[in-house]
């Protein structure tokens, strides 16, 4: 089974460890993993800023890069939503390329969904002897139905899950929103951090690096240097 890893631009730039954790999990489960070297971004920053044409150009680029893969996997619900939902239902809707993107969407998986639903893994290499609280990222949750999969995987790694109040509420990241409307974004993030603090976990875990950078940035600014902020791939791969 040939699996293409879509690393995501944020992981590439900021937290390569998440990419390697994903790689380890996929290879560990017996997948032949390819990582196209020319990949950059799914196009969502442009798409959500009104730059439809550049979003389409980048979607086409991704399509070409992963054309010969049986599956494509990304450690992000947000980028996966862009490639599985936005392309088919909006960007290429009614255009000749729609069918190509429908085929790509059918093969494209968010990492936790791929591990649980396709590979059906029953054990993971990582061990986490502590409590985690899980932040449900908006796109993964509401566009793709990512909810129990990462919790199930974290459970396999031995982590105890202490649910926070409002786990499904947006952390305020929203891509460029976090910069354009920084005050509101910060307040939303502070609300999220209040829930995290109240949950009293050793780590806050999520599946989208954008949210995690936002949350980590606010926790550290408010003096919390203790709570770890981790991608679930890092935890279950044993690289957290």
């Amino acid at each position, binding site marked *: 089974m040939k699996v293409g890893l879509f*690393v995501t*631009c944020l*992981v*590439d*730039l*900021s*937290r*390569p*460890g998440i*990419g*390697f954790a994903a*790689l380890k999990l996929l290879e560990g489960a017996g997948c032949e993993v390819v*990582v196209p*070297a*020319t*990949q*950059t*971004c799914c196009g969502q*920053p*442009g*798409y*959500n*800023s*009104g*730059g439809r044409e*550049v979003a389409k*150009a*980048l979607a086409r680029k991704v399509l070409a890069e992963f054309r010969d893969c049986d599956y494509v996997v990304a450690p992000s619900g947000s980028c996966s939503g862009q490639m599985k939902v936005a392309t088919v239902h*909006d960007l290429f809707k009614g255009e000749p390329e729609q069918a190509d993107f429908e085929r790509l969407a059918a093969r494209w998986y968010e990492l936790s969904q791929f591990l649980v639903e396709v590979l059906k893994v029953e054990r993971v290499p990582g061990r986490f002897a502590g409590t985690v609280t899980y932040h449900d990222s*908006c*796109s993964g949750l*509401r*566009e793709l139905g990512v909810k129990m999969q990462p919790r199930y995987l974290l459970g396999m790694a031995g982590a105890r899950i202490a649910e926070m109040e409002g786990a499904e*509420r*947006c952390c*305020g990241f*929203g891509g*460029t*929103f*976090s*910069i*354009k*409307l*920084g*005050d*509101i*974004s910060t*307040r*939303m*993030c*502070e*609300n999220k951090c209040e829930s995290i603090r109240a949950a009293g976990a050793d780590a806050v875990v999520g599946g989208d690096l954008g949210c995690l*950078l*936002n949350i*980590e*940035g*606010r926790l*550290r*600014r408010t003096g919390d240097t203790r709570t770890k*902020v981790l991608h679930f791939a890092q935890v279950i791969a044993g690289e957290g």
Partner: protein
Amino acid sequence: MFFKQRASEKLGDELLQGNMRKAKGKFVDGRAKAVAEFGVWEEVRAHAAKVRDRALANLDAYLVEFEANATRRGAVVHWAETAEEACAIVAGIARDNGVRKAAKSKSMVSEEVNLNEALEAAGVEVIETDLGEYILQLAHEPPSHIVAPAVHKSKEQVAELFVKAHGKPRLTEIPAMTREAREALRGHFLSADMGISGSNFVIAETGTTLTVTNEGNADMVTTLPRIHVVITGIEKVIGTLEDFATLIRLLPRSAIGQTVTNYLTLTTGPKMPDEADGPEQMHIVLVDAGRTKLLGGPMQEMLRCIRCGACMNHCPVYQNVGGHAYGWVYPGPMGSILTPVYVGLENAGDLPNAATFCGECAVACPVKIPLPDLMRKLREQQFDRKLRPWPERMAIAAWGFAATRPALYAFLSRVGARVAAWMGGSDGLIHRLPGLDGWTKGRDMPAPQGRTFRELYALRQGNRR
């Protein structure tokens, strides 16, 4: 002043913040409970979206049918193409009939067209009789929510307003305050010459207008004064009572988690010769004010809106800044679409951007309006018309240029990761980042770690070989 500045002010308003926090749970939890109990929510929701789409597809026919049936039952139907026309029509009715006092039940369309101001200019005293609207009339403030207009006010703030307005001792309990307001309003219902109401829907097959309320004031307004004026938007028309039966199952549940409102008032025509009660005249003012511009275009789905307020109740941006930050009558996600569309995208630049696209509004909307998608379409219009600030446009253009050129992108990210890692210092946190102070004002930026995934992966593959 624009949304961004107003929102920042509201974030610093501790009193407002406390009031908003109290309200949030009531709406969201109430709806969640009502939806869970309902059992077939998604099925009815899908049907409701179809009911609204059918109404919009047949808007011309339904409106004419409505006019014919309402006229047959003795009402006078007026057509207002603009807000000004709507005001002129109502002021004209008041003038022709020597109206000196008008009692109003809640109507967002009247807020939209500024009806109170127009009537007061014509010498008519206007009394808001919805409790929330009454409070705001005393406070000289616009509503901050389409269903709960005074949601931004605390009990204590209302008590203060009542002391000033009623000249009675300060009250501390809500039931006592409600009773005092009722007593103050009762005389107005009896002495008003004109009652003004909105209409949640208008029904084509019967010529009926209707209100969905909890206070009973609308029943007074529509029956006691000698003239009843209904003011509503043309998009409120639906085909049949059967259609209404579908929508009314969703509206109060979506709004505040009620299975049904206390009052559900259907009005068909004025008092007939053989009837004892009711107004002598009934006028129905159907307002366009920009609505037809949406028909047949990319924003048409917005006209499905049944004004339940669920989108704002569930919006994490609205929850934190309140309705006044949005700057016009319609707040929250629906306002972030309606305001730019009705008053011009160039006048409401921040609003389509006032969302993280978390999708909660789209999930909550009882008629399945894809609110984030519509906001994104407005962002596309802004992008195409170059309405966003130039640094933002430059940044998007530069990013797009690089992201479509892998070699350039690899080089830039390689340099960027190193520079940012250096800026992050020993704790790996960037405390200030020029140009990105929207982020760093309230948060650190966790720094990249020096090398990109693509570099490290290339190394790994090289070593393996």
